[in-house]
């Protein structure tokens, strides 16, 4: 068995590229779709997620601290998943996205409450996705009055009245003004890329079968992997053009901040483009007609929009939905894009998501190769 032939790959690639540029629909799809979607989705989409993972740093071991923590838990919005020992640990949990909130109860909390000396607790929220934090933050407003109602009796009863016994200081990190567009627009990059790329390539093999050209193609010595590479390569270019276009619009129209993380972002984009293309190719080996291929790509788009954390906060979804979401590349891509653009995270921080994308690419390519028929049987 000889290896891959560059000539044969180029044969398919040049043909595919020529066909692509000859089809006017291509241009509409590449440029018009991002514009329409950016305008449509630029509006806020809200949800009311509960039980959001929360890390706490408790430096005070007095009763009031414990009661306050209990009240926070009882609000239903916060699920304490980590107990940090240092400020650094707490910061890390928030930065890497393990938790949505980081709560600090300072060492002098109980003492200040007793003295009536402006006690505070600090709540830091990962506001990259403001719709995920909005309601939880609102719920904190009633916390000071409720938390210590049972504790402030006897000589301390006076502290229970106005002014409230302590104050909650909320810091919104990463997206301090809670601009929904900051979150939606990078997410749109994932949605638009998968829509165009999966849809366009899912027609690839199916079209050859429908037009009868597959019979000629199979009669030549070209190999499956060569067909796949040749057919997909032109669309890598399409994906990159769209990426630049969308990010440009995001900056121009919405002023989305770009904190860096360019290495992780580029890697994520490349992996995501490859994964989407391979998926499209896989669908096109399964579909019998172009119409079927279209339907399959739409079917794939539904969970990509609804369960990936694009439309609704990932953490607000029930477990089964999160499990499905974890299988979808858009989910991981969104984490990379938001992490890199809004938080400036690098490859070393985002490797779980990047790794998931890589696994997706490999699995889908393997499946596509297994599905691709070299005969008409």
């Amino acid at each position, binding site marked *: 068995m000889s290896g891959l*032939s560059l*000539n*044969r790959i*180029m*044969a*398919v690639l*040049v*043909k595919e590229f*020529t*066909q692509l540029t*000859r*089809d006017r629909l291509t241009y509409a799809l590449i440029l018009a779709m991002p514009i329409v979607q950016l305008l449509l989705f630029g509006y806020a989409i809200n949800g009311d997620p509960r039980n959001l993972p929360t890390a706490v740093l408790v430096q005070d071991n007095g009763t009031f601290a414990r009661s306050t923590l209990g009240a926070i838990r009882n609000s239903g919005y916060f699920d304490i998943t980590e107990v940090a020992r240092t400020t650094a640990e707490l910061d890390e949990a928030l930065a890497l996205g393990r938790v949505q909130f980081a709560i600090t109860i300072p060492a002098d909390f109980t003492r200040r409450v007793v003295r009536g000396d402006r006690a505070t607790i600090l709540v830091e929220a990962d506001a990259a996705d403001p719709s995920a934090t909005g309601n939880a933050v609102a719920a904190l407003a009633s916390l000071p009055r409720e938390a210590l109602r049972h504790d402030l009796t006897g000589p301390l009863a006076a502290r229970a009245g106005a002014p409230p016994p302590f104050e909650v200081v909320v810091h919104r990190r990463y997206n301090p003004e809670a601009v929904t567009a900051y979150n939606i627009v990078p997410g749109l990059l994932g949605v638009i890329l998968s829509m165009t790329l999966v849809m366009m390539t899912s027609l690839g093999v199916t079209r050859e079968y429908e*037009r*009868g*050209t*597959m*019979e*000629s193609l*199979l*009669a*030549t*010595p*070209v190999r499956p992997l060569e067909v796949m590479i040749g057919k997909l390569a032109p669309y890598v270019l399409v994906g990159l053009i769209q990426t630049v276009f969308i990010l440009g619009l995001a900056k121009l129209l919405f002023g989305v901040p770009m904190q860096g993380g360019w290495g992780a972002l580029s890697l994520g984009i490349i992996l995501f483009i490859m994964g989407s293309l391979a998926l499209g190719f896989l669908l096109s080996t399964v579909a019998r007609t172009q119409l079927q291929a279209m339907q399959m790509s739409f079917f794939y788009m539904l969970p990509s929009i609804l369960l990936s954390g694009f439309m609704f906060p990932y953490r607000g979804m029930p477990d089964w939905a999160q499990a499905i979401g974890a299988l979808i590349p858009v989910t991981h891509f969104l984490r990379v894009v938001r992490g890199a653009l809004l938080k400036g995270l690098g490859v070393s921080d985002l490797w779980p998501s990047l790794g998931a994308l890589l696994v997706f690419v490999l699995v889908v390519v393997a499946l596509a190769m297994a599905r691709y028929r070299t*005969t*008409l*049987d």
Partner: protein
Amino acid sequence: MTLAVDVSGLDKRFGDKHVVQNLSIQVETGRITGFLGPNGSGKTTTLRMLCGLLTPDSGEGEVLGLDFRREAERIKRQTGYMTQKFSLYEDLSIEENLAFVARVYSLPDRRRRVTESLERLGLENRRRQLAGSLSGGWKQRLALAACVMHEPRLLLLDEPTAGVDPKARREFWDEIHALSAEGLTVMVSTHYMDEAERCHDIAYIAYGRMMARGTGDEVIARSGLVTFRAEGPGADRLSRKLADRPGVAMAAPFGSALHVSGTDRAALEAAIAPWRRDPLRWTQVEPTLEDVFIHLMNQSRDNFA
């Protein structure tokens, strides 16, 4: 003599349809073999199995001296296959289609090969025209040019002239004979009698079975058919009356004349006796290939269908 194709015991089923049944075929190098038979008799399926596009359920043998089941890849490199339905890219130009083929076969000197091919076709001036906008005859010639570009040793043509006008068909056949003269082996399926007569050899299959094999003359001689021709006023209108009589295998009008055939001379003569008088003139003639084919078709229908 060497055999370009030598396969035996070929079988192919689609579901419970047994489309090709225990078929064996030998083709001598350098000859043009016409592949005939009614629609759905398995011609396309057989050609596809020979070039590795379909996997036979059983069957052994060699194509171009290579095991046709195990070495499909190497056979593909030396075989040109022209599909029944036009299968070049209609949204690519003539030149782009040829360039694609040249690349896929990794041909050296690609530009020169494409230009030569265009010149041979007489399409240099229309090289940028989209293949989809060509007329039927030109499409067929382009498809032929595309499948001989890599200089194959075996050419499989599946009804290459269906729906093409007579002049274009003649030119197409001139081209096939020119290629054959250069040593190429050709298998071509067709429904046209004049094309069958242009082939060196004929293979007639019906319902997936080989019914007749050999040169045109051999096929006629082996059929054992006796044919009478009637001429005169109203001769062509007798066919229906004669067709059902014992001893008559078939009766078919040929223009204003009538051909009546059967395998048993005595029975046939008895059948036509009532009309063997003025104003009709009867003569015994050589059966034509068409007579033989229609006869074979009727026979196989009675036996298998």
